[in-house]
């Protein structure tokens, strides 16, 4: 019997470049406060959000994803044909099938394997974990990962628990082989016991099964699924459990907080970010991703958008270490230390 050939592994992987695309509208707190009986002051104090980028009717989730992908490819010096896999993390692609990834691959001129993953606000860090594994196993050389959301398509603007936090955007990165370690071990996991803490209001089957004669659509009612959450539960989980996960990712990478150039947590709430910075005892020298102030919470796009914004503002971060962590609906989470491109 002949000896089977297996893919040659790559010793290390790294992120070659990040890219991003933002919604074309700046939506202020004043613009959205009315229907939820809120105010600019309340929202700024409780969340740190002043405006959020949202995408207009003319800018689709595919447009956002492809734009971020092209930006990341350009920053990485890679063309679409060089890609061996395309992974899109999203919860707002309006088709369960076919995937958004297939459209994005086509949009950047790639015929590579392409698939979507659903890990909400942890989606980008999940995708990086997969890309890292594919590259190191030798299954792929260059993997494009994208976190993208058009959350504004799935919000009820009269809903008070989450709608005011959310924005639209896309962030992307290319992961490829490396001579030196570029992506630390991912610390990730789930807590499905809290499946209901944050997510869509109902399923599409519930819409199908509704008897619209006995239950007619009420004035102002959104019949399609929209997002909502138990804010307190999610807040407590985030400040408490996620600081531990962040610390575990540092430990797994064999570094300490002092070694970091940047800390880029999911942009869920500025107050969560502040608390994590305190708990992790990050020194002042560590730059912290805080673009939630103008971007809002963009779920899967939030971490790469925040990394890309930091890199734009502080090019000196290139070559330094960043701890990125995503967490959200599932509940799910993922954290890893990466060398910034």
């Amino acid at each position, binding site marked *: 019997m002949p000896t089977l050939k297996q893919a040659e592994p790559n010793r290390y992987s790294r992120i070659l470049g990040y890219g991003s695309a933002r919604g074309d509208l700046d939506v202020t707190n004043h613009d959205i406060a009315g229907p939820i009986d809120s105010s600019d002051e309340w929202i700024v*104090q*409780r969340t740190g959000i002043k405006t959020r980028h949202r995408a207009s009717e003319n800018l689709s989730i595919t447009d956002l994803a492809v734009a971020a992908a092209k930006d990341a490819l350009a920053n990485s010096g890679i063309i679409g044909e060089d890609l061996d896999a395309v992974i899109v993390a999203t919860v707002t692609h309006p088709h369960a099938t076919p995937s958004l990834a297939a459209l994005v691959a086509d949009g950047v001129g790639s015929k590579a394997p392409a698939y979507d993953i659903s890990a909400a606000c942890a989606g980008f860090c999940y995708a990086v974990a997969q890309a890292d594994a594919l590259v190191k196993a030798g299954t792929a050389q260059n993997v494009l990962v994208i976190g993208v959301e058009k959350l504004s398509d799935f919000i009820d603007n009269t809903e008070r628990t989450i709608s005011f936090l959310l924005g639209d955007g896309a962030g992307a990165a290319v992961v490829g082989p490396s001579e030196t370690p570029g992506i630390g071990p991912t610390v990730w996991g789930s807590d499905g016991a809290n499946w209901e803490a944050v997510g869509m209001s109902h399923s599409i089957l519930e819409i199908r099964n509704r008897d619209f004669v006995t239950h007619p659509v009420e004035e102002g009612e959104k019949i399609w699924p929209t997002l909502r959450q138990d804010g*307190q539960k999610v807040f407590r989980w985030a*400040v408490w459990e996620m600081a531990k996960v962040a610390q575990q990712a540092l430990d797994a990478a064999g570094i300490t907080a002092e070694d970091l150039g940047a800390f880029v947590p999911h942009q869920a709430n500025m*107050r969560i970010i502040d608390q994590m910075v305190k708990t992790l005892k990050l020194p002042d020298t560590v730059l912290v991703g805080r673009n939630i102030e103008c971007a809002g919470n963009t779920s899967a796009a939030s971490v790469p958008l925040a990394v890309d914004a930091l890199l734009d503002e502080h090019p000196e971060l290139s070559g330094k270490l960043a701890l990125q962590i995503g967490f959200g609906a599932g509940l799910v989470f993922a954290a890893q230390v990466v060398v910034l491109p």
Partner: protein
Amino acid sequence: MADQNEILAGLAEIVNEETGVEVEDVQLEKSFTEDLDIDSISMMTIVVNAEEKFGVTIPDEEVKNLKTVGDAVNFIANA
């Protein structure tokens, strides 16, 4: 379990750390929101830190009932 004074002192430290309110101002009859001007987000952070410090569990539903510093001290003492 620690006595009331120890719990009060520990809680006052947590409140001070989170909000900057002076330790002496954290007294049993003070209301978190009215007197100490603590918002719901700071309250959650205080609760999480108190759980850690005193080794107790303070469920989400219970937090609403903790109107005064005394309510919190009693809850922790009896938890």
